[in-house]
């Protein structure tokens, strides 16, 4: 029996809907009773030398347990955040607390431990830090000039580069038309509704750390490395997590300091960051400056494409993967004979950048899909037609892309046609023309994107146990931040073993129970974690068959599992059967258990097409998304309820990036919108209902045939919406507007196009 395609409501909801869940700051366990509150002292300036830190007044404040600065941490190895760039050499190192220099507003300089919550704020104010300001490097373009250096010993702001010396201009020679432009994929904040939170206690031998993370096991190894203590001396527990979106992969310097403070002080500690802290100190996403160049013929054939990436890493390069992934995914869904991509990574006086929903893939897709629209506009061809002519043919899979990725399976043209059909594309175009003809101030724009993304790769662990009561327990390395793993894993086990979902417990996020795991990111859970659970369950099933045959005194081939009732039968004698509990009871260990690791050597490549119809008020620049139609094909869908939820959330984050969100700095590197009052997190009133179309092209990379879906909505929606806004204004001569497409920016583009048309040439 397969569970695939079954709409099932989540088993985890009951707890969340009645008690509100248990996030790190909700923990009221005995170990944390009387825990000290941790408050960070953070730099208010973007770039400065610290000339003096005086903690004496803070120490004297009532209720203060301890105040620590960088000097208390000397001797500890620098933290090794996830995917630390190899190219950073010894330079660009990030300390746990800033000592001599600060490089972004929000960089932690000291911590204060207090008995009472609010005393922390008071005492932190009393830590006296003197800064000698330096000029700030704001944005990647300025960083490239190397006029002001963040790390003088490095002699440059360039933390890494690749493949730019192989650019060859002659590949554009055969093109009739070449379009070229610089586009900005701006910096956004991740904003999980639960910010970072950590609690820790050291009992003299072991350090227990509760942390809001996407992978407890990676937290443990990073902590062991950073604190110089063996992994076995650390237990990391990840309870409910209020959203991650990439920014909670592993553990970062602030949380490491919290764990260290427990270790050093001998006192249990707890920390839950404020939103003001979160918006300056949690890693941010995107932050690329891209140069696109695309050449093709007037018949619509694309012949050459180049993507040149400048990645703003923020003050410290925390990841090595964003720009390389963007370069690998540069050609997207198109079969282009010549593709060149390369990157530079630069440091700037801003919050460090790391993974955020899609992490490198949305940037690649936004670039190529913008380039295709620029090309279509230039040759005067319908953008849908240009896409149809260039997408990789359905019979060309597996397809080795020009940048070396091996696309497993795809139906790109069909996905586009399905989206266009569902949206009634010709009718939308007719309405657009009618509105233009009537001189209506509210013009209509239609934008589309066809995308392919790369998900998964690597391995994951799972352990399935059935006990003498006939109950199953799943230990999974895939932890959840709201995706519904408990439900999905229980469905997989029920389908394989016939044990009903309400007799299955799914456990994740505790390194004592699950020492080895990879965790949740890059849409890897179902394809790797799910495959591991499936494999463990089938292993349990084969073991049980052996035991059942022995107990029933028949050959193994004569025993069948009736998945409907969860009982083991003798094939031609239905009256002779055993329950799961009876089988497990007679194994000698009173349980049947399989502990597996599943790995796939290749990632998978989900794909799809989005179509967005927007209305732009030409008098105000206000954009309203009227319709958003998507085909997101991630192979077979286990539980459509969960998949739709992922798609909805992804689309909303994509639209939010296009229309509202941006982390902004002034010329001194001071954040201008570091509160939710100013940062444009999208609300219900800003969005329409989304229209989801199906598409289920399987992969052969894993036994379930599935690909990842967590990031699809974001990757597909960003270029569709951006293209739609520009398309709305195409008749005015507008060819490009950078994101975020705020009313002010859209209005300015309209005015500029207007002025250009009026000016005599």
């Amino acid at each position, binding site marked *: 029996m397969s569970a695939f395609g079954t709409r099932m409501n989540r088993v985890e909801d009951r707890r969340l809907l*009645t008690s509100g869940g248990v996030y790190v*700051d909700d923990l009221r366990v005995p170990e944390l009773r009387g825990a000290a509150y941790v408050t960070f002292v953070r730099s208010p300036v973007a770039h400065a030398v610290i000339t003096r830190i005086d903690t004496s007044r803070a120490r004297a404040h009532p209720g203060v347990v301890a105040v620590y600065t960088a000097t208390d941490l000397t001797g500890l190895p620098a933290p090794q955040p996830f995917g630390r760039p190899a190219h950073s050499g010894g330079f660009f190192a990030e300390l746990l607390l800033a000592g001599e220099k600060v490089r972004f507003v929000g960089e932690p300089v000291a911590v204060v431990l207090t008995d009472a919550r609010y005393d922390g704020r008071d005492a932190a104010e009393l830590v006296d830090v003197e800064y000698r300001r330096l000029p700030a490097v704001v944005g990647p373009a300025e960083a490239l000039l190397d006029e002001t250096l963040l790390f003088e010993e490095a002699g440059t702001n360039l933390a890494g580069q690749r493949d730019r010396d192989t650019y060859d201009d002659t590949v554009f020679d055969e093109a009739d038309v070449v379009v070229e432009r610089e586009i900005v994929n701006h910096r956004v904040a991740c904003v999980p*509704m639960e910010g970072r939170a950590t609690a820790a206690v050291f009992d003299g031998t072991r350090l227990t750390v509760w942390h809001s993370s996407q992978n407890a096991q990676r937290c443990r190894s990073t902590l062991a490395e950073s604190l110089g203590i063996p992994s076995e001396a650390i237990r990391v527990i990840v309870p409910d997590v209020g959203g991650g979106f990439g920014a909670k992969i592993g553990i970062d310097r602030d949380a490491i300091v919290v764990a260290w403070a427990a270790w050093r002080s001998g006192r249990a500690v707890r920390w839950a960051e404020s939103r*003001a802290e979160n918006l300056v100190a949690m890693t941010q996403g995107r932050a690329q400056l891209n140069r696109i160049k695309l050449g093709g013929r007037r018949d619509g054939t694309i012949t050459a494409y180049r993507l040149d990436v400048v990645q703003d890493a923020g003050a410290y390069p925390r990841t090595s993967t964003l720009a390389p992934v963007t370069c690998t995914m540069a050609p997207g869904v198109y079969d282009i004979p010549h593709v060149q991509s390369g990157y530079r990574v630069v440091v700037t006086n801003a919050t460090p950048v790391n993974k955020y929903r899609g992490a490198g893939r949305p940037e690649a897709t936004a670039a190529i899909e913008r380039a295709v629209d620029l090309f279509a506009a230039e040759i005067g061809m319908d953008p849908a037609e240009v896409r149809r002519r260039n997408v990789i043919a359905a019979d060309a899979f597996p397809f080795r892309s020009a940048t070396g990725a091996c696309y497993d399976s795809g139906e790109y043209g069909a996905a586009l046609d399905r989206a266009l059909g569902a949206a009634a594309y010709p009718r939308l175009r007719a309405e657009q023309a009618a509105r233009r003809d009537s001189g209506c101030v509210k013009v209509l724009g239609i934008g589309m994107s066809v995308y392919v993304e790369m998900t998964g790769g690597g391995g994951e662990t799972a352990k399935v146990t059935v006990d003498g009561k006939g*109950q*199953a327990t799943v230990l999974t390395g895939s932890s959840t931040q709201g995706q519904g793993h408990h439900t999905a894993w229980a469905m997989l086990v029920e389908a394989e073993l016939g044990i009903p979902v*309400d007799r299955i417990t799914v456990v994740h996020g505790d390194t004592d129970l699950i020492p080895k795991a990879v965790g949740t990111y890059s849409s890897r859970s179902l394809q790797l974690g799910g495959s591991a659970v499936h494999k463990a369950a089938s292993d349990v099933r084969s073991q049980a068959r052996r035991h059942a045959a022995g107990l029933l005194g028949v050959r193994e081939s004569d025993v069948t599992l009736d998945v409907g009732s969860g009982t083991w039968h003798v094939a031609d004698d239905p009256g002779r059967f055993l329950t799961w509990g009876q089988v497990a009871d007679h194994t000698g260990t009173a349980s049947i258990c399989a502990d597996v690791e599943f790995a796939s050597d290749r990632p998978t490549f989900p794909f799809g097409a989005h179509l967005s119809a927007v209305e732009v008020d030409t008098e105000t620049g206000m954009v309203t998304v009227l319709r958003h139609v998507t085909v997101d094909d991630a192979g077979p869908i286990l539980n459509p309820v969960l998949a739709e939820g992922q798609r909805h959330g992804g689309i909303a984050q994509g639209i939010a990036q296009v229309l509202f969100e941006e982390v902004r700095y002034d010329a001194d590197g001071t954040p201008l919108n570091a509160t939710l009052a100013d940062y444009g997190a999208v609300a219900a009133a800003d*969005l329409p*209902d989304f229209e989801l179309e199906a598409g289920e092209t399987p992969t052969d990379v894993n036994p379930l045939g599935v690909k990842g879906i967590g990031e699809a909505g974001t990757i597909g929606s960003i270029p569709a919406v951006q293209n739609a806004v520009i398309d709305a204004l195409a008749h005015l001569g507008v060819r490009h507007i950078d994101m975020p497409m705020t009313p002010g920016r859209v209005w300015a583009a309209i005015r500029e196009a207007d002025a250009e048309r009026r000016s005599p040439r």
Partner: protein
Amino acid sequence: MNRISVNVDGTTYEDEVEPRLLLVHYLRDRPALTGTQIGCDTGNCGACTVDLDGASVKSCSVLAVQADGGEVTTLQGLAQDGEWHPLQRSFHERHALQCGYCTPGMIMAARDLLRHNPDPSPEEVRYSLRGNLCRCTGYQNIVQAVLAAAAAPDSVTAPAAGGEQTWP
């Protein structure tokens, strides 16, 4: 220090509190009702929404002393004797929560809306929830859950517990 007496979800608590103590911290620390979450420091996210004397308030923007003599209802007070509030049921049935962090505030805000407007349009739901941010769901299922609860306002028996993970 001020002496306050507050009824929270049916139980009365008497306490000495600092005048500056926020209601949300009071609720989370004193009766340990941690279902009410904190998502911002500016009154913009709505994660902390509770009911105070019949009015929906953001408990991060109210002082505990202001609740003296008052009655507070939180998400944790909604289910009665195993009967779910219709919003709890419809959020479950429409998959209107993912990580669940915004959910307590979202449900309390939706409850307030339905009290004042028992038959809202989708636009009215979207508009009235604009002070409650959700980063996971894209809002679509939340809007549908609120509409469904408006259409079927009777409470129901909570679904059976699965094999749920509990946290130490």
